[in-house]
């Protein structure tokens, strides 16, 4: 039986970290896009900071995807 994430014996696996990064990257990407959709009064569309953020989110998600096949190896 797998230990709960809040047990004293739990540690992240490569797969677990991979999933975390994929979800984090996707959520971050959507959140950055939503800044412009929700805050319609802003000027200039997607700015340089947002572009850097979007790029980082994509990189994070890709790294996450590449970790998933590594399975139960500990992080």
């Amino acid at each position: 039986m797998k230990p709960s994430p809040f047990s004293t014996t739990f540690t992240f696996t490569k797969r677990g970290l991979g999933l975390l990064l994929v979800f984090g990257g996707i959520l971050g990407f959507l959140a950055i896009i939503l800044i412009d959709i929700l805050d319609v009064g802003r000027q200039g569309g997607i700015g340089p900071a947002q572009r850097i953020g979007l790029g980082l989110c994509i990189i994070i998600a890709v790294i996450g995807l590449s970790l998933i096949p590594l399975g139960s190896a500990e992080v």
Partner: protein
Amino acid sequence: MTTRTTADPRLLMLFSRALTAAALIVLFGYLLVYIAYAANLMGFPFDYDQGEGFELVDTVLFSRGEWPYRNTDAYPFYSSNYPPLFHVIAAPFVWGFGPAYWYGRLLGFLGTLITAGAVGLAVYREGGRRDAAALSALAFLAANTIYHIGPLFRQHMTMVMFETLAVVVLARANEIDDTGRRRRVIAFGLALIILAGYTKQLAIFTAGAAFAFLFLRQPRRALVAGVLFALAGGAIFLWMNWATNGEWWRQAIRANVNLINYDQTLGLFRLWWNLYGCLILPAALLGLYQLYFERLSIYTLWFAASLGQGMLSGTWGGGDSYFATSIAALCILSGIFAARSLNGAWQFPQNYLTRLFVNPVRRFAVPFRRALLVIVPVLYLGYGRAVLHMPTEGAVFEPVADLLGLEPNALNGFYDSATRIVGGYADIGHFVTQADVDAGWRIVAMIRETGRPVLSEEAGFQFAVGQEVITNPTQLLNLANNGVFDGTALIDLIESQYFGLVILRAQFYPENVLRAIVTHYEQRETVAMNGFDYLILAPRP
């Protein structure tokens, strides 16, 4: 045939050791330059880097038991945006020696030596090689950025020292079996991060890396530690805010929100790569190796987080110093890479990446391992060439500079490979001369002559005269940029020509203050000191 195959590796080992010794000699040479530079600066009684004098003001205020976070709309319009710890550490020197620059610079310098020691210790602990540990520690001190800012009266390198000590303490904390001891070690490591944060706010990135590391290893432990960390750090924050009537928040947090100049950030990343690329490469390779073939170390997470500090290097007030933490991290990672390579200790457990990229080239493992014996010291030699900086004048340095064919490209006969390719690059590193000292005393004599308070962009002159320091121009600009500086009372004094002189170095004051100055004061003289033109303005008749 048998003889040949056993003799060749021996020759190769000998060659590798000779290259490693050469790299150690080169990097040790930079240590000598660094010591000479630090000694030179400690004897200079004025600002070498703009703002040092205001850090001395903070130190003097703490030595009197007063806060430097003050209302800037009331006389003497002084406040600070830096956390207190560095100045608190320096405060006892004020009791013994009065206001002076040398002890702040000495503390900064000693902090870099301690950091280098921690870098070397981390590499030795992970790799078990003295040569790799020595190369890493010396490489840290040889970095142009560390050289530039190490012996300054500034808090940045003390923050880096606490950050480095913290990650080295936490690196193996999770593996401690004894629960009580493990808790004490983690508490000590996190306390060091709090100390780093109350030295300079940028340490928040190191806090992020430390908690990411604890979380990945054991989420429950990280959450408990995180709550206690937040309570301790938050309590200090609230107490300081209460004790300063909210000025801590206004001056150190709110006034520190500044726009990023992306061209400056990109330029400084380019400079970072050009100078330290020879060690960034092995550091990044070790990080990738840990990600896919081993457990992630705190050093890899710290290195990644430290690039966040680098991203902020384009802010007003930021600069190449924002890469100092990443340099400590990359020196540790590249040192571990070097130790493993020299030990031939790389292992690749079977996974899809091993099957794709490693197994097809396994037959080249032995020659590749031998090649690494040469590649590693060559990387350090390449690093030694990339960070080249030294005086080109003087009895000791001139013959070496002549031998290397160096022409000075910085002030006062100095060569520095960290060329100015973007704004925000600190124009420092050269030695000061007697002419610089004389120029400073000339400005002091002018202030004495007026017998009245002066407005100066450098506090050192006022300390020399024994006058009260009025205003901290860069902080007033920070506040003005964030819309929380009024300036009416200061401008009234300027308009009434209350100040005997106004001394400008870089016109850092907010625009409305500068406008009042040029309207009511006129330039009387220009004094060149330490590469800057100090404009001396007197009241218009």
